[in-house]
C-alpha cells in the first residue's frame, strides 16, 4: 500500500464509523419517541381491560373501607376533554420507572382519588406514549376528569407552574405548606419541562369541582361533548 492508499483506507474507516454512529443515534431517537410508545400502548390496553373487568365484577367499595390500590395496577382513568376526544389514559398506582412506563402514575403517599388532600399523578412528556405531552396547553378553568369504579371526579385547573425537579412541596397535602391539614380536594400533575429535557418540572394544579356518582348513561358535563361525539 502506498501512503496515499493508506490515508484513503483510514479516512474511509473513520467515515464509515461516524456514519454508523449517526444512524445508531437516529435509531435511538426513534426508539425513545415511538418504540417506547408501542410498549405503553399495549400496557394501557391490558390495564384498561383489567380495570373494566374489576369494575364490572367487584362490588362497589364501602366508602369507609375502600380497597387499597395495588402498585403497578390500574386504579382510574384520567380524561383531558379540552385536549381532545381520545385523550384519556389508565392511571397506574406507583411512580417507579416500571410503573410510569405503563402510564401516568399515582404517588402512593398522596391522597386517594377524589379524597381530601392532594392527588399527585406523574406522567411522561415525550416518551412512552407521552401521556402528559400536552398538559402545558391546559388553562385555568379547564376540566380534568378522573373516573373511578363508582365516581366521575371533575377537577378544574387552577394554576400551572414550572419548578425545580427537587420541589417536593408541590406534592404536599396542602401544596407548599408542610404539615398543614388539608381541607380541599386537590389534584396535581407533574411532568418534565421543557419537552425532551429534565431540567425542570411542569406542575398543573386543579381542584375538585363536582363529584358525580356513576350511573348508566350519565357522564359529567365536561365529558358530555367528548363521549357523545
Amino acid at each position: 500500500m502506498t501512503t496515499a492508499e493508506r490515508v484513503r483506507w483510514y479516512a474511509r474507516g473513520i467515515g464509515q464509523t461516524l456514519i454508523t454512529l449517526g444512524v445508531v443515534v437516529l435509531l435511538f431517537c426513534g426508539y425513545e419517541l415511538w418504540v417506547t410508545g408501542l410498549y405503553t400502548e399495549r400496557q394501557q390496553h391490558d390495564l384498561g381491560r383489567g380495570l373494566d373487568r374489576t369494575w364490572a365484577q367487584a362490588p362497589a367499595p364501602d366508602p369507609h373501607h375502600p380497597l387499597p390500590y395495588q402498585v403497578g395496577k390500574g386504579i382510574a382513568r384520567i380524561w383531558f376533554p379540552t385536549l381532545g376526544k381520545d385523550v384519556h389514559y389508565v392511571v397506574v398506582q406507583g411512580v417507579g420507572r416500571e410503573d410510569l412506563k405503563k402510564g401516568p402514575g399515582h404517588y402512593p403517599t398522596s391522597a386517594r382519588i377524589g379524597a381530601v388532600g392532594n392527588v399527585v399523578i406523574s406522567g411522561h412528556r415525550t416518551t412512552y406514549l407521552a401521556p402528559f405531552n400536552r398538559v402545558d396547553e391546559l388553562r385555568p378553568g379547564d376540566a380534568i376528569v378522573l373516573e373511578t369504579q363508582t365516581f366521575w371526579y371533575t377537577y378544574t385547573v387552577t394554576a400551572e407552574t414550572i419548578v425545580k425537579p427537587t420541589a417536593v412541596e408541590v406534592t404536599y397535602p396542602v401544596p407548599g405548606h408542610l404539615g398543614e391539614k388539608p381541607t380541599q380536594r386537590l389534584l396535581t400533575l407533574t411532568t418534565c419541562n421543557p419537552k425532551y429535557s429534565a431540567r425542570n418540572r411542569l406542575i398543573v394544579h386543579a381542584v375538585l369541582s363536582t363529584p358525580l356518582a356513576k350511573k348508566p348513561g350519565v357522564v359529567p358535563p365536561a365529558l358530555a361533548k367528548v363521549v357523545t361525539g
Partner: protein
Amino acid sequence: MYVWIWRHLPGSLLLRLLQALLLLTAVVALLMLVVFPWIEPQLPWNDVTVTGGSG
C-alpha cells in the same frame, strides 16, 4: 468494514442481499431490544417526578 463483510458473504447477488438484510435486522433488533433499554435509564429526560428519584 461493510465492504469486507459484503465480500465475505457467500452465494449469488440475491443471496448476499438477503443475508445483508438479515444481518441488518439482527443488529437493529439487538439495539432496540437490548442496548437501548439498557442505556435509557442512564439518561435524564424520562424523569418526571419531583422526588428527585427517577421516573
